[in-house]
């Protein structure tokens, strides 16, 4: 299975060294969905088409996109807002960066169509500090789209007007959480808030607001152009719809971002597309969907990569960022690294997260450095269970790699305790 075997949808205009221009985007059918939809479809019809396509959110949670748009009450207040999430701070994830660099107008058209579907007049594209290049590209391309009549007042001569602005983030992982992101845009301290009310009812400035990941939005023009059945047919299996951008990193020969059908086996992604494991490396574990997912063992090497198949074996697709760990990499060290990340990025709002994560980090640090004790294992399990009582999804996400470390690699953890040292060659200063 080599490149070219599967249809490229989101990456159809991707070039090795530069973005696709507006003209190139148009040559391949770009903005045709917008032209047709504004003439032929009511906003509600657009929601129904997306609902029928089974498009699920690509940012991590997998919530059905059409259903989210339909959650905006028809009699809800105006103005309404769209927040396009390109924060992408989940370790291992870089698909939004590659996608925006490939085809910026695909994002702009998707945002405009999404805005039309629930009556929004303004969108914010939320971008993290390390993606400053994206800010510049998008601000420039927004201007180009405006001059071509695809954005701004009375788009394509209709009475639909829509504005897109780029919002720079000041950093911090929690800003990618939908409610925290809205606080960030409003210039408030970006702590999450707990629904209800949901942002679709009361979001930015108390108005109906939809938060979508940019990869989700990029699918929208294609679905509206080709129909929901076409989209469903892209998945490799029944009930898997569309393609997915898989980011592969770690001990593989060709780390990178690959667009493949939803439901493609993990083993195929690693071997055929990412070039297999590096010479001398043997697979030990995979984080299948970013840092907030559970370690997957080689027993599940052939699992189809989609929401339901991973869910059926107790795992999550998350952001589909596949981090590959080999036999020589210490998973206690890796988990310590992930836990340091989450402890640092906790917003500190609630106690289970603020207190629990440093506690777990400390226990893992002692084990990794040969000062672990047998009685730490039940302490870790208890504290991980407590993290599920926290206010938002950050701490339960942080618990996932730790819990799975103990479930599947307890022997490796014990070896550290018994030998009073890390049994692996040092890869880093953990």
């Amino acid at each position, binding site marked *: 299975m080599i490149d070219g075997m599967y249809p490229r949808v989101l990456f159809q205009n991707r070039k090795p060294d530069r973005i696709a221009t507006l003209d190139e985007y148009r040559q391949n059918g770009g903005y045709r969905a917008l032209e047709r939809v504004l003439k032929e479809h009511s906003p509600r019809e657009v929601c129904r088409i997306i609902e029928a396509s089974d498009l699920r959110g690509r940012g991590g949670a997998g919530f059905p996109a059409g259903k989210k748009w339909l959650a905006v009450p028809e009699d809800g207040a105006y103005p309404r807002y769209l927040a396009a999430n390109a924060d992408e701070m*989940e370790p291992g*994830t870089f698909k939004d960066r590659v996608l925006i660099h490939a085809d910026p107008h695909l994002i702009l058209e998707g945002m405009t169509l999404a805005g039309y579907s629930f009556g929004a007049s303004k969108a914010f594209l939320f971008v993290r500090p*390390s993606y400053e*290049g994206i800010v510049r590209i998008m601000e420039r391309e927004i201007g180009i789209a405006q001059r071509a009549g695809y954005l701004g007042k009375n788009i394509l001569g209709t009475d639909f007007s829509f504005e897109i602005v780029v919002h720079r983030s*000041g950093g911090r992982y929690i800003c990618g959480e939908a409610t925290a992101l809205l606080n960030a845009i409003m210039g408030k*301290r970006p702590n999450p808030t707990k629904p209800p009310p949901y942002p679709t009812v009361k979001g930015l400035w108390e108005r109906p607001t939809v938060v979508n990941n940019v990869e989700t939005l990029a699918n929208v023009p294609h679905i509206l152009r080709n129909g929901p059945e076409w989209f469903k047919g892209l998945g490799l299996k029944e009930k898997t719809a569309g393609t997915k951008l898989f980011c*592969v990193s*770690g001990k593989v020969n060709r780390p990178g971002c690959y667009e493949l059908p939803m439901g493609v086996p993990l083993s195929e992604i690693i071997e055929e597309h990412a070039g297999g494991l590096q010479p001398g490396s043997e697979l030990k574990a995979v984080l299948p969907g970013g840092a907030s997912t559970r370690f997957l063992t080689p027993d599940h090497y052939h699992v189809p990569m989609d929401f339901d198949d991973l869910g059926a074996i107790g795992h999550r697709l998350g952001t589909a960022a596949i981090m590959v760990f080999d036999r020589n990499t210490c998973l206690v060290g890796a988990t310590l690294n992930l836990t340091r990340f989450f402890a640092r990025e906790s*917003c500190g709002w609630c106690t289970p997260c603020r207190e629990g994560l440093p506690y777990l980090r400390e226990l893992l640090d002692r084990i990794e450095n040969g000062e672990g004790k047998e009685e730490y294992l039940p302490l870790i399990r208890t504290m991980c269970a407590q993290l599920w009582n926290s206010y938002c999804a950050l701490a339960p996400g942080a618990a996932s790699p730790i819990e799975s470390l103990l479930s599947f690699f307890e022997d490796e953890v014990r070896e550290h305790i018994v030998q009073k040292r890390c049994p692996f060659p040092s890869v*880093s200063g953990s």
Partner: protein
Amino acid sequence: MVPSRLRDELRESVVRAEHPREKAVDVMFALQDHYGYMNDRAMAEAAEILGMTPLELEELATFYDFIYREPVGKYVIRVCDSAVCWMNGLESVLDHLQSRLGISTGETTPDGLFTLLPVCCIGYCDRSPAMLVNRKVYGNLTGERIDEILEDLRRQAALSQRND
């Protein structure tokens, strides 16, 4: 004091925004670029431009890790220390930078050119190990590559000093 042209520009962008506070991070970034970091005077000026109290702005400044409330060097080097870079040689990247710059993580070189700080995953796992210098990303780091980058930055700094 902030030059009046910059202040007017920022005021105008705040007026144009639907809600002034939307612009809080943009205004802080602009003043941070001017002063080098968000000192107390910059905080007061930013708050005034935004129509916020200094305390309201402090809530944001202390939250975001790209807002610096302490002096930093002209070039802030932020080394990604998340899982993939950790796996791919973070330790040797840090060792190399610390020895070349003669500082530890969290410190600034005595000439005020470089500050070394960690950063969470910057989304360049396909070019790991990676780091940011101010807003620019450098990936596939090796000792040799780091030396070239530092040399380039030193040259740039000397040039900009001469032009001042």
